[in-house]
């Protein structure tokens, strides 16, 4: 694998990024050499989904060429291979998140489904009238709506921790809102609309002190920073494969064994049962109790390949590279006349949300697209965040390991072009 040789050194002190190293890394991502409207592609929509390295694409092909069969049922060799590949992937995902046991990793479709699983299954068994669910004002719709639905079913109440004008969590308000009624705290690790990194260790410790369990939405965080679920002592952690340089349709739920054991199943069907009669069915062991039906087998295999890729590059390098690039981008984008950042929390990562005087984000998005620059424009599935900052939408540039100053310079040039169009 080329990356083994070319990934830069991962000691923090030598983590300054050389153009040479990133250029080699970029070669692992075939799509980055696509021409967009005849221009070089500057892909800055990574918070929506990341691009896939060659070996992830190869893992999908290899699975279908050498191992494809259904898992957990066949006695034939291919089924054994498919089952081994699928379960090996679970072991690798568990190791990536530092879970104590592979069965604490449940495969889902995406982070949204992971949250729905917990809200439905854990929420149904543990929430009742008088209880409170605590979320924050910076959540993605996927960490709001499932809790609203759980509250509607159980009579529990949804409480929201406010954020300040920079987009940082109001920790004092969090501590005030936290109390004996709080049954679960559900918060993002890294805000998709603002880039805010939440102090999750502090949040988890405070929640545990009042007996609440904590779900951390790591959809945005997991591809930017190392996550150790045991060190965090988090109860549930959710992530999604397609932001981890892996395939779509492949979500991850980590849950502590005792919590998962005590929860009823989410979806019913094949694979999640131990026995079925018309009178009664009994449930399979973890994690299969939560994995009804044929799973996304090649998705798990490809996700494992993506995680190996990430680990070879290393979060020390990724973190330093992206932090340096975010600092560069923050300065460069802010220097464009009429541009204002939305989300300036003291601890941020990878995301740059902004608005431009007199130009709607959609118009920015269309003009920069013609310059080869892919950014996201709109409400980012975080309408309460837009309301909090009094904007209908923002433009958002978001970084991944393969981005360079060239990408940022191309964006900035396109923003100047946008201003010219709407002058």
């Amino acid at each position, binding site marked *: 694998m080329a990356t083994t040789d070319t990934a830069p050194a991962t000691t923090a002190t030598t983590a300054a990024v050389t153009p040479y190293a990133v250029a080699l890394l970029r070669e692992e991502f075939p799509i980055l050499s696509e021409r967009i409207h005849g221009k070089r592609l500057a892909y800055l929509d990574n918070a929506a989904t990341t691009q896939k390295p060659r070996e992830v694409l190869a893992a999908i092909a290899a699975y279908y060429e050498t191992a494809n069969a259904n898992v957990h049922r066949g006695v034939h060799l291919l089924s054994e291979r498919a089952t081994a590949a699928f379960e090996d992937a679970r072991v690798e995902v568990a190791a990536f998140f530092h879970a104590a046991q592979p069965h604490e990793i449940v495969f889902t479709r995406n982070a949204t489904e992971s949250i729905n699983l917990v809200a439905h299954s854990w929420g149904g068994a543990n929430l009742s009238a008088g209880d409170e669910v605590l979320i924050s004002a910076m959540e993605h719709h996927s960490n709001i709506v499932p809790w609203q639905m759980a509250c509607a079913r159980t009579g529990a109440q949804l409480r929201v921790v406010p954020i300040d004008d920079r987009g940082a969590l109001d920790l004092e308000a969090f501590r005030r809102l936290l109390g004996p009624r709080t049954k679960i705290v559900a918060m993002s690790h890294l805000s998709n609309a603002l880039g805010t990194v939440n102090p999750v260790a502090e949040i988890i410790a405070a929640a545990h002190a009042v007996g609440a369990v904590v779900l951390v939405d790591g959809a945005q965080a997991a591809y930017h920073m190392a996550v150790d679920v045991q060190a965090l002592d988090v109860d549930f952690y959710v992530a999604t494969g397609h932001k981890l340089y892996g395939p779509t349709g492949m979500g991850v739920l980590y849950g502590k064994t005792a919590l998962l054991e005590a929860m009823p199943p989410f979806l019913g069907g094949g694979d999640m049962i131990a026995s079925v009669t018309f009178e009664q069915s009994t449930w399979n062991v973890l994690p299969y109790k939560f994995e009804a039906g044929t799973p996304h087998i090649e998705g798990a295999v490809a996700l494992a390949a993506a995680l190996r890729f990430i680990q070879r590059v290393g979060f020390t390098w990724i973190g330093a590279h992206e932090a340096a690039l975010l600092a560069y981008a923050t300065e460069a984008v802010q220097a464009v006349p009429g541009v204002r950042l939305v989300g300036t929390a003291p601890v941020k990562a990878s995301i740059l949300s902004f608005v431009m005087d007199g130009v709607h984000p959609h118009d920015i998005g269309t*003009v920069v697209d013609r310059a080869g620059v892919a950014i996201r424009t709109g409400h980012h599935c975080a309408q309460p965040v837009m309301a909090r900052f009094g904007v209908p939408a923002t433009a958002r540039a978001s970084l991944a390991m393969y981005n360079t100053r060239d990408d940022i310079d191309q964006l900035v040039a396109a923003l100047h072009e946008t201003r010219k169009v709407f002058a």
Partner: protein
Amino acid sequence: MMDSLQELYQEVILDHNRRPRNFRAIADATRQEGYNPLCGDRLVVYVALEDGVVRDLSFEGAGCAISKASASLMTEALRGKPLAAARQLFADFQAMVTSPSSEPARDLGKLTALAGVREFPTRVKCASLAWHAVNAALNGAAPAPVSTE
């Protein structure tokens, strides 16, 4: 600027975006909200009918250049039109912005400026937002916002 961008952001559109016409509320008019859930943009249109004729027409709200310019141009195009002619223009406008860009755009006067959205599939709904709202208002107004989805 590249050609298709120039085609999209023609001077008439930039002008109506900068200085939207009939950008106000009308008391005692039928009020209809239009909502584009893809981007969260909301426009409100006001339609005052008198003896089967669109006597006055206006809009308010925030939106992108395309949705604002389209709403602004629409208020000018529909004012004074009999109900049947207004409905026909709605149908003609829809047909124009959804027709293949390989075909010559149907001539709808100043509204033809919006034919440029055909090259930008993600922006067609921006152009039709206000029109859907007005069409609902002409049919007696819906209680909920009219959605482009």
